[in-house]
């Protein structure tokens, strides 16, 4: 039986990447296949139901997977993650010529964020602001940019729209990852030097390859060992790594998801048993 993994088709390159990995696994004698989902919720539910053995999960999808597993007493394992999934930060950015120098200065202001389900451009930064004393919709207005809802922020469009709103002057601040702040500056969405970082979240982790209960221990070990053995020196692997944005796989870890779990609880996005409790605004 093939080892079956789910992946969310947030971009056509997902097919190139996983078809390439599938071919590489076949050469190593591993019968691997993948199915594509249009959003993360169905993927997580299928992992919980044992219809797939593994899932390439967003951090939010991992939180839900973990809660479903705990509630139904099965084991979920974050098998591997990209080196680039570790220790990300998000930043709160204002225009350079604005009077804002500290998060507290944003009281009463409008702050642009990404999609409702973006861990990095919405959930973690809003939780960060709340911890700094700015209650959303009470002390500050949050302007969401719901592009690709259900993709958990993988679609960069919402984050870019938030940056554009900042540049256009329709909001006082915007939230985005450190990587995308650099990207938007280099591509010209934000002209160089036109913005200022006034705050930065604690570091957090991003995606992981989550394994469900249906995968036998030995298969999981072999799958993990093969992933970790993939090398950037391998000319067949390297283009796939470049597309997927990693230079090496690292063992999965759970230590980088606490900030997101807090944000999930604060917004009642999922309940403790992994049910989707986000309001109507979350409709993947």
């Amino acid at each position, binding site marked *: 039986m093939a080892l079956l993994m789910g992946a969310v088709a947030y971009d056509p390159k997902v097919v190139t990447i996983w078809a390439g990995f599938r071919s590489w696994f076949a050469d190593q004698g591993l019968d691997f296949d993948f199915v594509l989902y249009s959003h993360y919720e169905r993927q997580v539910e299928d992992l919980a139901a044992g219809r797939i053995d593994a899932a390439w999960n967003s951090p939010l999808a991992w939180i839900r997977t973990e809660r479903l597993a705990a509630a139904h007493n099965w084991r979920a394992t974050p098998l591997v993650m990209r080196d680039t999934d570790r220790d990300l930060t998000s930043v709160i950015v204002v225009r350079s010529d604005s009077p804002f120098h500290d998060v507290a200065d944003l009281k009463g202001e409008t702050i642009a964020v990404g999609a409702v389900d973006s861990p990095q451009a919405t959930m973690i930064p809003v939780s960060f602001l709340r911890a700094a004393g700015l209650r959303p919709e009470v002390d500050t207005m949050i302007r969401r940019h719901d592009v690709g809802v259900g993709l958990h922020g993988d679609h960069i469009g919402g984050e870019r729209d938030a940056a554009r709103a900042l540049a256009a002057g329709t909001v006082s601040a915007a939230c985005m990852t450190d990587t995308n702040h*650099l990207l938007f500056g280099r591509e010209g969405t934000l002209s160089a030097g036109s913005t200022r970082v006034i705050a930065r979240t604690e570091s957090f982790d991003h995606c992981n390859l989550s394994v469900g209960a249906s995968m036998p221990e030995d298969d999981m070990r072999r799958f993990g060992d093969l992933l970790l053995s993939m090398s950037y*020196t391998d000319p067949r692997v390297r283009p796939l790594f470049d597309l997927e944005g990693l230079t090496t796989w690292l063992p999965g870890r759970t230590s980088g998801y606490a900030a997101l779990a807090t944000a999930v609880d604060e917004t009642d996005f999922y309940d403790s048993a992994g049910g989707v409790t986000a309001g109507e605004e979350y409709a993947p």
Partner: protein
Amino acid sequence: MSTPSAPVIDLEDLGFEQGAHLLIQRALRDLPPGDELAVTGSDPALVVHLEAWCRQFGHRVHDPGGGAEGVRARVVRGHTDLNRWSAAERAGGPGSNGVVENPAPHWGLAARGALIEQGGPELPFDLTERKLVWADIAPNLYATAVSAQWNPDEAVQWEAEVALPDEVERAVVQIMTYLVENEQAALVIPARLLSRIHPHFREVVQLLAVQAADEARHVEVFTRRALLKGGEMGTSAVSGRESLATLLTEPDFSLASFLLSVLGEGSFLNLLSFLDRYAPDPVTRQVTRLARQDEARHVAFGVGHLQYQSAVDPSLRTRLRAAVERRHDALVDTAGLNQDVFDALVTLVAGEWTPQAVKRGYAEVQRLRTEMDEGRQHRLIRLGFPPDEAADLSALHTRNFM
């Protein structure tokens, strides 16, 4: 690894949105993986962007710790960039002495001598062996060919007086029509071949490209001469097109080069000399003379390539012989040269409709055939054929000349 004496790069006020990564990359280039680079600079977003950039390229960033004043972060050099190029290889050497025997398909369109990252698509060039396409004279011939390019507008005096008797003018038009048809074959064949050759054999591809461009010019000037007096083009017989079609169907590079350049264009050298000699007007003389200069290069490459190849492949001559015989067999039941073309050549020499003039014209065209035959034999002998075999093979060449 704590290295208080780690090298320091000062970015001053340069940000990553303005190219700071270039200075970081340069500073990291000579460090071994694991070593640290201290970074100073005044851009407010320096640390945020440095961390984001390093994460993407496999480097790590540490807090500044103690040490040099003003250090805002320490980069631990990773090895991703080294891994990318660890198995890279040079695609031969840039000069013609750097041509390898069997360039790899994945070298693709890369410049000869470039450092090639492993991997990538394998392009479907099927002529990938040096011995199949190379000739040592190719680089020199290419240089000569480029320097000998001419502009049809300037190289030919189109306004020169041309006032021929109608029937002589018609003979010139018929010959031009025939030349255009043959030059179109001579254009298509190298163009098709060059797209099959591995670009590693750069000079051969370049030479064939110029050869195709030469033929394009020949098609132009022969057409312009044919239409100079405002008449219609001449005839195109099935026999001529049948003969040329057999050239287009030859898939083997060396055999195609042999049939087209050595035998066909070789015979054309004699024909173009003949037309130069008996041209009834200056425009006809100029276009045939210019074309002949180009064709001589094409023949030289064909002979040079086959001399090179026969030195490394003793079976070549057997295959060349078989190609001539095959083409002869395919054309044995066809008429050969368009009768209108033959008659036009006679008319051109005769210049008038008297029995003596026609006799002279006929004899001269017969002499042309003899010269063509001798030229082919001479080139076949240069390729290593014994004289008697060269004579046999030359006799089997198409009566259509090309």
